[in-house]
């Protein structure tokens, strides 16, 4: 396990380094952009130069940029993400948490559904290889995978909201279930979940199909059949289990797609999640909010990827051997 331990350690060490670079770049982008963020705070109406000076003084915007950066990061690592310009007087962490929860609900359901639909379809297609079921099931979902989310949302709205009238127009309702706010239980959640799930299903199904086809060709499957096991048992116990191993990799792809997907879907459908918050922060030059979103987003994303990679190494020890040869 020495190789794996070293690898994990190196990847772990890389996380803060990358976060540091990302934070510097994001901070610099914000501070060197032409329109100042005090302009946004003051508004575009009548300008009071004194007020602007005062705000700049208060917020420490007159100090050198690196001092501002160090001060911001010092507060950030202690859990103080600064103050939102748009949500006046509110701390960013208070604004972000409920939004994070909404996005998390949607994305968790999406992930579960993606695997629950994608895996069986992949297995089905592989087992029925050569029949019409194979290209049909994979091909149908490939269409969904190929249509960008930005295009999928208006089309889905057109079909399900306007033509069929099955789904509500958008937005987000909250509902308390045993003291927990579960907006996901409302019909408003169906459209975003559907639009975010469909693309992932295709990728997963195709990958699973390839895996199952690979495993089906293995000697131990022939052995299993030769000793008289029923085909169902062979598929479920021998094929699927082995084919599932490398699937963990796809989680990484899924996560990347969900980050961009959430921003677009939440903005389009008016869901008050973290994706919409990111977009709003960017358009209103709310730099402390941008910093918080980018740093939190990158940290969560990197740690998730790291967990995926490590689990992959644990699951399939063969990876180690092949790599030492190359």
């Amino acid at each position, binding site marked *: 396990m020495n190789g794996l331990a070293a690898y994990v350690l190196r990847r772990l060490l890389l996380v803060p380094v990358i976060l540091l670079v990302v934070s510097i770049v994001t901070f610099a982008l914000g501070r060197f952009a032409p329109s100042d963020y005090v302009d946004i705070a003051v508004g575009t109406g009548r300008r009071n130069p004194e007020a602007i000076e005062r705000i700049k003084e208060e917020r420490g915007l007159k100090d050198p940029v690196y001092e501002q950066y160090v001060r911001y990061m010092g507060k950030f690592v202690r859990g103080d993400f600064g103050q939102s310009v748009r949500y006046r007087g509110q701390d960013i962490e208070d604004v972000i948490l409920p939004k994070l929860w909404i996005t998390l609900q949607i994305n968790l359901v999406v992930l579960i559904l993606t695997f629950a639909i994608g895996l069986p379809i992949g297995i089905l297609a592989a087992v029925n290889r050569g029949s019409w079921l194979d290209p049909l099931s994979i091909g149908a979902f*490939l269409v969904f995978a*190929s249509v960008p989310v930005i295009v999928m949302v208006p089309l889905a709205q057109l079909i399900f909201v306007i033509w069929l009238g099955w789904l509500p127009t958008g937005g987000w309702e909250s509902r308390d279930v045993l003291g927990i706010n579960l907006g996901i239980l409302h019909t408003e959640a169906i459209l975003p979940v559907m639009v975010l799930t469909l693309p992932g299903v295709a990728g997963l199904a195709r990958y699973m199909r390839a895996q199952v086809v690979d495993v089906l060709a293995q000697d131990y499957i022939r052995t299993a059949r030769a000793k008289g096991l029923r085909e169902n048992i062979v598929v479920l116990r021998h094929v699927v289990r082995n084919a599932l191993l490398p699937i963990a990799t*796809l989680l990484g792809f899924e996560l990347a797609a969900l*980050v*961009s997907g959430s921003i677009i879907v939440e903005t389009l459908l008016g869901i008050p999640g973290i994706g919409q918050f990111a977009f709003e922060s960017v358009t209103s030059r709310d730099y402390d909010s941008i910093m918080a979103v980018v740093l939190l987003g990158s940290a969560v994303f990197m740690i998730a*990827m790291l967990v995926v990679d490590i689990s992959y190494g644990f699951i399939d020890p063969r990876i180690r051997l092949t790599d030492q040869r190359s």
Partner: protein
Amino acid sequence: MTTVTTSTSEPLDSLAAPPPSFRVVRRLLRRPVAVVAILLILFIYIIGLLAPLIAPYEFDKTDLAHTFAGPSSEHLLGTDRLGRDVLSRIMWSAQTTVIISGLSIIAGSLILGVSLGLISGYVRGWVDNLIMRAADALQAVPTFLLLLIINATMKDRARSVFTDVEDITGIGGIVKSGAPSFFLLTIAFSIFGWVGMARLVRSQVLSLREAEYVTAARAMGSSTPRVLFRHLLPQLTSLVVVTITITLGAVAALEVGLTFLNVGIQEGHASFGIMITQYAGITSIRAHPMLILYPCVVVAVLVLSFNLLGDALTDILSPRRR
């Protein structure tokens, strides 16, 4: 060297020595799906390239007497809320897509990606290490979020830079032509876009560099650039073509997504993203479904065609054909 296959390694890693390209083309043409995909892509691209010649109107030519007009002989797909011809807008938007994809692919995948991959795989050592750690870092961050932020914060800066260029050189109309947003998008896409291509090229070069003809070339005194570009690069043609095909669709979708979020192509220029943004609200969709349907269908068809073509190519070039 990474000891664990990272989650971001691409399925193309398994490509073996590819067959000569003409055979690939012949096999490709035997697949009806691939042929249809190629034709659709060519159709959209040619329309985009010829937009200045064949578009019936300018994309921003307003006609306030005929707003929201239905299809007619004058406006085949009708007009939008300012009486602008929808068909012309689609054609000009296709041109934007062609330009952005072309520039990004050339700068990001071809120039940066291929050369960094070649250097990384051939030179090895700390250079390889540096390039690959940079690639790791770029793949470890949420790309779309950073693209959004780079474009949002720098778009005004890009415009002012181009205004200065206009003032200094005395050439007018650069900013008005939309060059700043094209430039910025290309740069932003290239920063993240080289990684996939560089990894693929590197993995191929790692094995190719041990080939005898490379040793022979070196023994005869070929310089490193000569070995890289005359001896190694031609071997990688099909790999590069496949990767570009797959990337082109993704870049088109990215441009539309960023433009929709108001940080890509700016209002006043043609883009599918702008067409979608303007009519994306549920009230607009209800009132004028066709105005949102047209650009959506074109983008969907384009990206789908690229994916189908990429799929067919991967399938043909993959050693484990099933």
